[in-house]
């Protein structure tokens, strides 16, 4: 049996990509370059699609692959990583580490069946507001064409029409030491347990 997972087809169910599908994309920016570029795009009133929600890190070198995987597992359709141009990192050379992590991440998510185009890397200096806006627009359209990723949620809300809450209540609920959230409520994956 092959150890490689077959890459899932671009749009699920083989249907045509939904033209009204609005991707939800998480973007990681660095405080000194790409976040400032986004701010510059704002000050210049450059318009771009509203699909990317940006997180500010101090440096692209802070980018932990955990963040990218967390974003996918929480429902993002794509992740955008951005930082200073190689050679211009405010912290000298940290974006090279980000670049290498990005490469390895992309290979791994591809092995897990996520289209590599759902993880994109854009370098943008603090002066490149318009360019960043254009790249965001480009990525949004590429992801729109791929369709929703729709990664399943860790905590199950409803399966096969069964009200799982009722099931848990009937089987003793909390008293039996059962988790408050039914199904796969792994404390590691829920918001509460990260303390």
């Amino acid at each position, binding site marked *: 049996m092959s150890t490689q997972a077959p890459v899932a087809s671009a749009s699920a169910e083989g249907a045509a990509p939904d033209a009204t599908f609005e991707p939800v994309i998480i973007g990681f920016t660095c405080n000194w370059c790409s976040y400032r570029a986004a701010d510059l795009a704002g000050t210049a009133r450059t318009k771009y699609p509203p699909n990317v929600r940006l*997180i500010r890190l101090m*440096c692209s070198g802070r980018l932990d692959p955990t963040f990218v995987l967390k*974003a996918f597992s929480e429902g993002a359709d794509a992740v955008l990583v951005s930082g200073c141009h190689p*050679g211009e990192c405010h912290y000298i050379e940290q974006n090279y580490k980000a670049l290498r992590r990005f490469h390895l991440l992309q290979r791994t998510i591809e092995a897990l069946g996520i289209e590599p185009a759902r993880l994109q890397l854009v370098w943008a200096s603090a002066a490149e507001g318009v360019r960043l806006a254009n790249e965001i627009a480009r990525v949004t359209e590429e992801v729109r064409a791929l369709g929703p990723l729709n990664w399943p949620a860790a905590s199950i*809300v409803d399966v096969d029409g069964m009200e799982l809450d009722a099931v848990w209540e009937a089987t003793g609920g909390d008293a039996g030491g059962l988790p408050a959230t039914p199904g796969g409520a792994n404390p590691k994956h829920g918001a509460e347990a990260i303390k």
Partner: protein
Amino acid sequence: MTERIGVYVCHCGTNIAGVVDVAEVTRWAAENLRDQGVVVARDYKFMCSSPGQDLVTDDIKEYGLNRIVVAACSPHLHENTFRTATARGGLNPYLCELVSIREQDSWVHTDKAAATAKAKALLAGGVERVRRNEPMEPIKVDINPATLVVGGGIAGISATLEIADAGFKVYLVEKSPSIGGHMAQFDKTFPTLDCAACILTPKMVAAGTHPNVELMTWSEVEKVEGYVGNFTVTVRKKARYVNEDLCNGCGVCQEKCPWKVLDGDFEAGMGRRKVIYTPFDQAVPRVPVIDRPNCPYFQKGTCRACEKFCDAKAIDYMQEDQILTLQVGNIIIATGYDLFDARRIPQYGYGRLPNVFTSLEFERLCSAAGPTNGNVVLRDGKTPPKTVGIVHCVGSRDQNYNGYCSAICCMQSLKFAHLVRERTDAEVTNFYIDMRTPGKGYEEFYDRVLEEGGHFVRGKVAEITDAARLPGEEDKLIIQVEDTLTGKQRRIPMDMVILSAGLEPRAGAKDLATRFGISCSFDGWAIEKHPKLDPVATMTEGVFVAGCVSGPKDIPASVAQGAAAAARVLGRIQQKQMNLEPIKATVYAEHCSGCRICNTMCPYNAISFLEAEGVSSINAAMCQGCGTCVAACPAGAISGTGFSDEQILAQIEGLLSVGADGAPLKRTAYPETHHEAIEEAVRA
């Protein structure tokens, strides 16, 4: 801890409210983020105003809030404002988060519904993040009152004198044998036509003799360690082979030295100097240097004339490089520029056609102390030119070489036109693209030169050639140019052509930047903290830039920047202590296995490996808070304050709790099997 979070959504007039439905976002937050701990949610026209800030301060006291989220403009604008308001309410300022719904939302999107939905998502992200914020205190560091100035040109000298005059110690390190920089090479300065040496040398002397200045010429910075207020700098003072303490600057050694070499530095290759030399007569210090690779004593063991004639017995062939360690609190980098190498434009013939000169070469020609005693003559050293062409924008404003404008060449070219007319009867033609004369007195200078009667051709010179085609072109340099004002191609014969070559970053600029821990752009210009509002600071605390190191500029701007950098440094020295943002990484030794993956993650050398304990350790003072090591650690043993895993993972959850339409993001579930039979059995 039970969170009690206050949420404040700013209208910013109509900047936000015109696109984002702020009332709806506020209402939504109050209702949907209650489980996350939101107890009060308000919207207000201008949160940054006094009454706006008071909302925060008062609510903290009245509602016992322990976290604040302000959804408004960019944190780069008002993070401090709201942190201060939070502190006034009695809460640790780092428990306040800013969410940008202006630059990142209302200003960049047109679809109001989508922008409102995005604002909800961004706010949810901020709320989830702030729940994981920890109270922090800024880190206080002492400031060493000594300052290092790197580069002894006009900007560096400016900075040095300001600080020294204020009563504080300055180490001025210059890699040439003398301070003065490029300005010392010029003949006259625009627009006043002051003699460059006349206005510069008094400053050079002042710097060289100031009791608070320790001048280290023929020296280079090799290593910089430490952090603001506490830098340890390693300087290599190269061997001059002349004892500085004994030398009295009489100059006899230079007179008597029988050996001359081409001077490619100060004389720009136009003249020669002795092997034991000071770069120019007014050099500071007046102590000469022996050019070892060209000295027959060092190469063959012969001569020793300088030693014979030196009354002060200052010649010391055994002298060695000295490595000095300096402790300084702040550093000002003023290392200047290099001239664009005009040989890179072969069609201009520089280096091949003898009478094509660069700007620096021409400055040396004009200089009274230069190789031709100030006579403007051709390369043969005697013939004055009858026709001179001055080409602007050589290597500047050119997609093939440097796209930027070098700022000073137009004025410099006009100055050359004036100087040629002053010293010869030659006809002068300036070949320009635009005339850039923005400074004080610059436009007036342009008028003056126009009145003096030069020709001006608007067009980028295509070629300078000696291949004559038409009568009158023999033995001349022909400038081939499109005259855009007449719309014609022209061939204009010249005796002499001067190329106003552009300014470029110094050859070792990127290495220099790395050594000092600052960034430079792709071209090599040092990057300032903010190009508009903070042009002399860099992103690295304690390191400042002045003069052309950060980009082409004229002498008044360089002097102003030198003084500005000095003022910033003096401010720090006067305060004696500084607050640093407490964004730092820490290794938890109990979880560290000593795998050493993190050891190469820090460009500031803040991470060291403790052999005895078998763990890695981070020097908090040197840590700049980038977080790279936090992300790299395979054991998760490094944590970072301010941008912890907990905070960011929570922010991701919050951002993804809202879909593109403003409703909760629709999720599917992992497939699972269910049987009635199983459920019954479990119920049993």
